[in-house]
């Protein structure tokens, strides 16, 4: 008989210790981000209370001004949870603004027709990228990078100039206000919150959502457990494409124009929001609620810098960079602990 490895060890099979469980709790990063948001908001309140920072509308504006980012980031959350990445987000948004503006202004089509077309094109683009990633086993980074160039290029096929939207149905929709406890939200903000709620339900209460987590946890295992891993992956990119197109529509509403250069690099903001929201870039761990806080934190940085007044808007980027770095380091230490 082998006489090895009779190591003294913790009571086998026992429940892991309390401290270990708290550290290993996957909700911790979300709570950290939510805490950060509250601290930043409190700082804003104390510094700018005489300049109207405390008004409800300032808070609600965070949702209005970042509605498109939230939708795009929700799509990115699915992709990142599955262990992938989608770099085409910004380009798909840009393309959607162009397509929508062109269809509405130059072709005179009503929104009822334009919206499904735009969403369909985005979803189909995502599906194609997912199909290539899955069936040709190519890294998502490269495939979606190709998508980034492709959609940005297609913007210029539609028009080299920006197209401003004068259609009355668009502007009335853009200006519509839904009053919420002492302030108002735009239609875009409402849509983004609905998307968030739907994503939460899908991720936590459907088999599809759980498969996304499983694939992100260990793709090979998911395959061997008999899960339809290929279809799930394609669906994740389709969903990201759909969310990007929807974000593009919200962006069009917000800006009321189409421009080939709209939303350049927005995919990076979306990824930053997801990571700051506590989702692991390696996949399998994170919450879409975290993404909401990630978006709010990014939005709040912008607001704070606007309220400060003397700072250039480039400070937004610097703050985002610092935060991103800090959060990745926190994640790293947490996962390192979890392994031991």
């Amino acid at each position: 008989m082998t006489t090895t490895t009779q190591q003294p060890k913790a009571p086998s099979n026992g429940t892991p210790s309390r401290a270990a469980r708290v550290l290993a709790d996957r909700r911790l990063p979300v709570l950290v981000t939510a805490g950060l948001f509250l601290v930043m908001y409190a700082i804003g309140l104390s510094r700018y209370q005489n300049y109207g920072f405390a008004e409800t509308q300032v808070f609600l504006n965070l949702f209005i001004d970042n509605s498109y980012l939230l939708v795009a980031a929700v799509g990115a959350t699915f992709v990142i949870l599955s262990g992938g990445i989608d770099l085409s987000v910004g380009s798909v948004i840009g393309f959607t603004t162009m397509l929508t503006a062109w269809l509405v202004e130059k072709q005179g089509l009503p929104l009822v027709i334009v919206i499904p077309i735009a969403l369909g094109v985005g979803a189909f683009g995502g599906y194609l990228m997912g199909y290539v990633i899955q069936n040709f086993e190519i890294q998502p980074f490269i495939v979606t990078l190709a998508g980034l160039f492709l959609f940005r290029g297609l913007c210029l096929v539609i028009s080299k100039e920006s197209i401003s939207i004068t259609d009355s149905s668009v502007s009335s929709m853009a200006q519509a206000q839904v009053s919420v406890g002492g302030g108002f939200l735009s239609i875009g903000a409402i849509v983004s919150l609905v998307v968030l709620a739907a994503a939460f339900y899908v991720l936590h209460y459907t088999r599809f959502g759980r498969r996304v987590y499983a694939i992100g946890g260990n793709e090979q295992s998911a395959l061997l457990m008999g899960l339809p891993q290929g279809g799930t992956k394609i669906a994740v990119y389709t969903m990201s494409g759909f969310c990007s197109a929807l974000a593009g529509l919200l962006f069009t509403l917000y800006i009321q124009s189409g421009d080939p250069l709209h939303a350049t690099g927005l995919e990076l903001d979306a990824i930053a929001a997801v990571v700051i929201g506590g989702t692991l870039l390696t996949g399998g761990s994170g919450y879409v609620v975290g993404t909401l806080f990630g978006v709010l934190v990014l939005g709040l940085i912008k607001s704070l810098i606007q309220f400060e007044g003397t700072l250039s808007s480039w400070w937004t980027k610097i703050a985002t960079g610092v935060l991103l770095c800090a959060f990745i380091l926190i994640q790293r230490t947490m996962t390192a602990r979890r392994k031991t």
Partner: protein
Amino acid sequence: MAEPLPVLEMTGIVKEFPGVRALSGVDFRLFPGEIHALLGENGAGKSTLIKVLTGVYSLDGGTVTLNGTSVRFHSPSQAQQAGISTVYQEVNLCPNLSVAENIFIGREPTRFGRIQWKRLRREAAELVDRLGLDIDVEAPLSSYPLAVQQLVAIVRSVGTGDADGQGAGTKVLILDEPTSSLDRDEVLELFALMRRLKGEGVAILFVSHFLDQIYEVCDRMTVLRNGTLVGEHMVRDLDQVGLVQLMIGKALDQLEELHDHQLHADVGESLLKADGVGRTGGIAPFDLEIKKGEVIGLAGLLGSGRTELARLLFGADQPDTGKVTIGGKQVSMSAPNDAIAAGVAFCSENRKTEGLVPDLTVRENIILALQATRGWTRPIPVAQRDELVAKYIKALDIRPANPEARVGQLSGGNQQKVLLARWLITRPKLLILDEPTRGIDIGAKAEIQKLVVSLSEEGMAVLYIAAELEEVLRLSHTIGVLRDRKLVAQLANGPEITPTRILETIASGEHQ
């Protein structure tokens, strides 16, 4: 004894790969409520038979009957639906999900598409409870040690089809080397689970390299050799010696001879000296002298610093204290290149991740280290290279003896031999072998041990690390005992040194 009908019967199974007949006319049957061992050396066809059964490979001949009806599986999921589940050596679960979810994912109970979490957790807890395990199903899988994860994998495979009442559950459970990374207590827990399942009428096919475990838990065994059936026996009718003879086709007294031989062998002059070499967080400073032709075995528990010691002597980790002299010259040991230049070779314990390049051919893998010592600007002449490779393939009996075969496709024992060949070809003065016999079958183990002895006869010094104390005792002239990352004793081997004595030294941690 009246035998019930077999739940699974395979007759005349043939599987061919290009140029190789992996299985020729193998018969195999499995009865409900039995634990059946599938035995054979590496390359005997065990994995191939399992893969044919589970639908990973297609059949080239023969029939498979499950519960009296003829079946043919084209994918693992088809086999799974028919009630044949497999748990592999590596745990194929998602560490980021909870235990309950890992058990049920893919067949979660739903209502109108919404997962019923309460029901899922309750059913998982019931299942775990029924199988006599004490696991919190809501904790993430990663919070449990590997052994428990393996048990969860078994629970998952047993629970197949339970959730929605679809399917009849698992009838055949295949456990492919489940015990290779478990310690004794964990193995016992696994066995308890296996017996419980057997009591529920599940037929279990158990593959393990540990013969003691087979004798402990199995009822019946089927032995394969070179792709053919050697025999089917009740475990109680065949003793271990007889079994080993069946498996390798020859008696195994040779290993005993090795021991006697090593006890009486002489060693040469000093080759390597380590003075106070140590590394913070790795191993406490130690002194060690290795002589030419000497085999030094390292004994100690997992994590006692065996590998860390070896890595320092190879420069894979840099020592913070002490100095190493090889052949009278001090070597800086700041990188493996220094050690290689001084004639040290290191066979890593993780042959897959740190040693072999699975996508390269046998020839390329063998030639890698030799080419590295020459530098890439001076390729080895083709004729000389082919001759060297052919020589070592023959000397080590690497199968298949095809230098163009991809290493990833070889069995574990043969991969180990390729790794050995790589270093032997550089004619090292000191060969460090870290767990060279782990995960390979008994025949290949014996061959590798014989090789170590013949190398030491030729004057090569060997630092030998193995988890099995018997192996260390058999081969070593001197035994270094490690405990808590410290070299606590160096014992000269002799008739009075026994595994018990070594264990006492490990336990007391003192020179005796």
